[in-house]
């Protein structure tokens, strides 16, 4: 858990779109500079083809790729790889800073079970997180696919997994004041879509989880079910609505928030490793 807070500050409080990635073939960490140059050329070529992001704005896209050795679970995990696209507008003055347009990073946190069974020439970094325009994600993704013969898939998070997340994170002990635990449900089969937001005081949520969890550090499906059932019956008692018949689409706690479309926001560095470990697991099960 000795993650350098400075280096991981870029992760926090940003909405990251999640993907699962199959292992990369013949990826050489020593060649990151070369890869950055190749990706830069690829993006320039795509723009020439007319697949430009913004019309009328001349942008030089600079690509930077770096290794993040602290962002991993065990020594068996590959260190994370960060890809950043920045621009310097040709029209601006010499003192203008590069503007960060897009970032994406590959990581694996406690993904040993998966990487163990993969041949030597493959690099396992099953979780890919992006922030920025979808068009850049598509370009970066297709370059990686062409170069390393891997494939990307959006990582969806089912209501079952979201309830695991809210149970785990609501139970986290935090030093500073916590924000409300919020669950958002979407109600199906209505002519106009309806969203129900259920906010719980963080102390109450933690107290509930503490009575449910039997062994600290371990969580079972039964415990998650009991936790959710308590929340559902409390809601039913007050509003006569069965939330268990609705679809849980988003959960938000002081630790992190997650959306079923595969979007995550990590708000606190304290449990970064735990959050990434869970996401790595989801990515691996989507690949297998």
């Amino acid at each position, binding site marked *: 858990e000795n993650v350098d807070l400075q280096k991981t500050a870029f992760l926090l409080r940003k909405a990251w779109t999640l993907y699962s990635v199959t292992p990369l073939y013949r990826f050489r960490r020593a060649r990151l500079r070369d890869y950055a140059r190749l990706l830069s050329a690829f993006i320039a070529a795509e723009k020439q083809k007319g697949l430009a992001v913004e019309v009328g704005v001349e942008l030089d896209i600079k690509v930077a790729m770096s290794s993040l050795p602290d962002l991993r679970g065990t020594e068996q995990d590959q260190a994370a790889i960060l890809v950043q696209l920045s621009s310097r507008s040709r029209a601006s003055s010499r003192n203008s800073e590069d503007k960060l347009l897009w970032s994406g990073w590959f990581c694996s946190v406690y993904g040993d079970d998966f990487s163990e069974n993969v041949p030597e020439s493959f690099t396992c970094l099953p979780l890919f997180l992006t922030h920025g325009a979808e068009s850049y994600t598509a370009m970066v993704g297709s370059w990686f696919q062409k170069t390393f013969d891997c494939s990307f898939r959006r990582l969806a998070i089912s*209501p*079952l997994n979201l309830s695991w997340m809210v149970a785990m994170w609501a139970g986290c002990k935090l030093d500073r004041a916590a924000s409300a635990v919020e669950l958002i449900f979407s109600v199906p089969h209505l002519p106009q879509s309806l969203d129900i937001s259920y906010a719980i005081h963080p102390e109450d949520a933690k107290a509930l989880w503490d009575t449910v969890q039997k062994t600290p550090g371990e969580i079972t*499906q039964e415990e998650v079910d009991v936790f959710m059932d308590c929340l559902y019956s409390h809601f039913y008692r007050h509003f006569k609505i069965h939330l*268990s*018949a609705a679809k849980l689409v988003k959960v938000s706690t002081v630790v992190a928030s997650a959306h079923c479309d595969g979007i995550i926001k990590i708000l606190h560095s304290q449990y970064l490793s735990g959050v990434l470990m869970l996401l790595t697991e989801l990515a691996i099960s989507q690949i297998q």
Partner: protein
Amino acid sequence: HIATSLPLPSERDHLRPRIDLIVFMIDIKSKYSLKNVEASLAYVDASFFLGKVCFLVTGVGRLNSCSVETNAICKLGEAYCSPVIFCELELEGIRVATAQRLLRILQICAGHIPGVSALSFVSLMRNSDDD
């Protein structure tokens, strides 16, 4: 006959024909449907569990919207010695095939197929457990 839960209203008992098969439908997207089925099971006479009950799990095409653990449903099937059928109603092919399966099961339960009775389902299930 379709009901949202059991027990059936007693007022119509004398008008109701014999019940040959009970299909409990569980929507994998709704935890509530599982709870409803679990509660309704308590109102079923024990004799039905000799092959005249089956569980139909719908919505399996959309695992990304899964709110129910499939393990829990399989355990339910084992506990009540009844088969669990998974299907996706949104796909016409599967919908038709599932309907045909259920019809076949119903024919057997109603005694329309000579030589095969509902009890065959129970023994089929026990055999796969012994493997």
